[in-house]
């Protein structure tokens, strides 16, 4: 028997359903990233903070594997029609992402259309420049940028009779230190490196204001050709080969294996990412210091500034305008100077705005944590030139791998430096032309 009570109860339930349904109609924004460990926690904190600060959008961060894997996953998803909204892509994937005109939406455009205040000049030149077209349009949002720095073991320096408070500034000084370390037996290996191509090809060029390739290192056109067989490059690679045969330089691998050799105490000096500092801090049982990347003092214009590594956030195409508004809001949230300063302090990645750097400096962070500002100072040393703004090459993952192959062949004694670099140029140009062909259609 239907009574008023039943009817009323049904009405209340229906009303509640409608209300709760509306509350659940948040627009979801998928964010695919490759941050692990403590960095993963930071990413989740960002998303949680944003979600709690407003009700319209919900950012969902998803770990999709390391950079190459997550990029491949996003590409497959795009082909299937369900790409994420935001994708974290490493810097070597920039060329590929940029050429995918139908697949991405430039960040500058997203911010403008989303009605967010956005001034590209408010970002550190060397950081934003990497992700900006030659016409000044910012394509992706710099998120976690690092650069190459020099670490050395102060305890080993002291044992070898070197001044532990004076970092070797030039490559000849580094090798003189290496000779002394080897002679005194203070450590088993003197110098090693992580990311060989990033340090000894790309940043070697930028730091000495020498081009990697024509067309502003590829930023001004797809018809760029490599120039890494210049006298400076040949000189440096010949040195590397020489130092390797003398036992001063130990090759550890193509990624960051060298870092483990450093913090285990095996190698006394290391060139690698500024983002390695967190790991080194945790594992090194000795006093160490951070310094700027070594250079050749007799090269005019050196030191200029270094190029960034790390990754940026790209916005994928094919989503609804309402969702893009949410993305724009989230990116503004990430760019907040206080939040950037915190991210920089906690992770060792560069702050993307000078304001964040100033906040950190005023808080006395750099005084309490020596060496954490080297990366920023290196990036802001001078205004970037066309040789040091960054680089943009298609198929660069493959090309970098190939540079390292040629270096390995050289160090194994199969070829000398000039042959290695000439081959690297030829193979690299072949890959660039192949990419250019697919990108032009």
């Amino acid at each position, binding site marked *: 028997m239907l009574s008023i009570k039943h009817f009323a109860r049904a009405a209340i339930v229906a009303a509640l359903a409608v209300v709760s349904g509306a509350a659940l109609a948040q627009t979801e924004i998928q964010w695919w990233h490759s941050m692990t460990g403590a960095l993963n926690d930071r990413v989740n904190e960002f998303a949680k903070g944003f979600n709690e600060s407003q009700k319209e959008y919900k950012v969902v961060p998803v770990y999709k594997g390391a950079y190459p894997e997550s990029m491949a996953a996003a590409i497959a998803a*795009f082909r299937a029609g369900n790409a994420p909204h935001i994708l974290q892509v490493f810097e070597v994937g920039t060329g590929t992402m940029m050429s*995918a005109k139908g697949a991405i939406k430039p960040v500058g455009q997203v911010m403008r259309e989303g009605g967010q205040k956005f001034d590209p000049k408010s970002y550190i030149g060397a950081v934003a420049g990497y992700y900006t077209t030659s016409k000044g349009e910012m394509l992706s949002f710099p998120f976690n940028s690092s650069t190459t720095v020099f670490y050395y073991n102060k305890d080993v320096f002291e044992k070898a009779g070197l001044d532990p408070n004076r970092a070797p500034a030039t490559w000849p000084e580094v090798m003189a230190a290496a000779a002394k370390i080897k002679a005194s037996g203070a450590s088993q290996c003197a110098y090693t490196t992580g990311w060989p191509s990033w340090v000894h090809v790309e940043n070697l060029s930028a730091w000495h204001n020498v081009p990697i390739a024509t067309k502003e290192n590829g930023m001004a056109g797809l018809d760029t050709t490599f120039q890494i067989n210049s006298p400076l490059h040949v000189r440096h690679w010949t040195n590397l080969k020489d130092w390797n045969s003398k036992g001063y330089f130990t090759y550890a691998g193509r990624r960051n294996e060298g870092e483990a050799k450093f913090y285990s105490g095996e190698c006394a000096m290391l060139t690698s990412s500024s983002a390695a500092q967190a790991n080194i801090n945790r594992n090194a049982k000795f006093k160490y210091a951070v310094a700027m990347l070594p250079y050749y003092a007799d090269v005019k214009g050196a030191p200029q500034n270094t190029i960034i590594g790390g990754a940026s956030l790209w916005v994928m195409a094919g989503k609804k305008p309402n969702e893009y508004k949410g993305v724009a809001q989230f990116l503004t949230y990430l760019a907040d100077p206080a939040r950037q300063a915190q991210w920089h302090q906690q992770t060792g990645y560069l702050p993307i705005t000078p304001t964040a750097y100033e906040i950190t400096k005023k808080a006395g962070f750099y005084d309490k944590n020596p060496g954490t500002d080297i990366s920023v100072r290196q990036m802001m040393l001078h205004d970037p030139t066309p040789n040091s703004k960054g680089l943009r090459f298609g198929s660069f993952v493959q090309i970098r791998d190939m540079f390292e192959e040629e270096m390995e*062949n050289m160090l194994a004694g199969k070829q000398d430096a000039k042959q290695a670099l000439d081959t690297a140029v030829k193979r690299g140009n072949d890959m660039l032309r192949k990419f250019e062909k697919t990108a032009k*259609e």
Partner: protein
Amino acid sequence: MEKRVVFRSPWLPYLLVAPQLAITIVFFFWPASQALLQSLQQQDPFGISVEFVGLDNFRALFTDEHYLASFKVTTIFSVLVATIGMSVSLLLAVFADRALRFSGIYKTLLIWPYAVAHAVAGVLWLFLFNPTLGIVAHWMRRAGIDWDPVLNGNDAMTLVVVAAVWNQISYNFLFFLAGLQSIPKSLIEAAAIDGAGPGRRFWTIVLPLLSPTTFFLLVVNVVYAFFNTFAIIDTATSGGPGQATEILVYKVYKDGFKALDLGSSAAQSVVLMAIVIGLTIVQFRYIERKVQY
């Protein structure tokens, strides 16, 4: 007299085969046809611009000296893995066959490595022999041996061959042991009475009677070395140093997923498929004739 199963209902047989057929179509025929199609196209990673280029990808492959070098690496690698794998396991099987006490324990320990997944095996050997992390590498350095699979191509090849052989020994061992135990003891005893020494007995009686097993294992080992070793190479050396351990199947992965060059990668996998089909045909046509059943 041949036994035949007769189905009275016209659609039941098809229904029963349907699940297997579905799996074969979805997981083999469909990807293979996609690979064939993509090998004739050149496209950007996102699939936005797809261009039909005919046999250009194949032409580019066979004029690329690095692809041809990869052939050499794959040949060396598979010959080493197949021959070392089979000889070591044959030796172990002969020993295990003769063992009287604790034979159960020996057999269990020898079969054990097969349960280890290939990727895990690669990482295992990496943790032993990597010059930065490896404990055995550390001892080798202390003993003065110059071991560096990160820079020395031969060292890297040694590392992956050893890891691949270790994983496969159990499989070969099992089959050889079964084969050995199926040889009638009367034949061996008769030869011994006639004065044949153990070596002679092995070469003239045991090996020929073992030939069906050996032939089968040869086919399996070659396919294993061509394809299943991908996980070991990926975890242990990633194809390095230079390209010293970049076997064909690894190059397919690298060009497809790292370099995102799908046309070239598809062309390479088509070539690989043709090679293995060819090898299997050759093996069945010619070598099987020599097998005595």
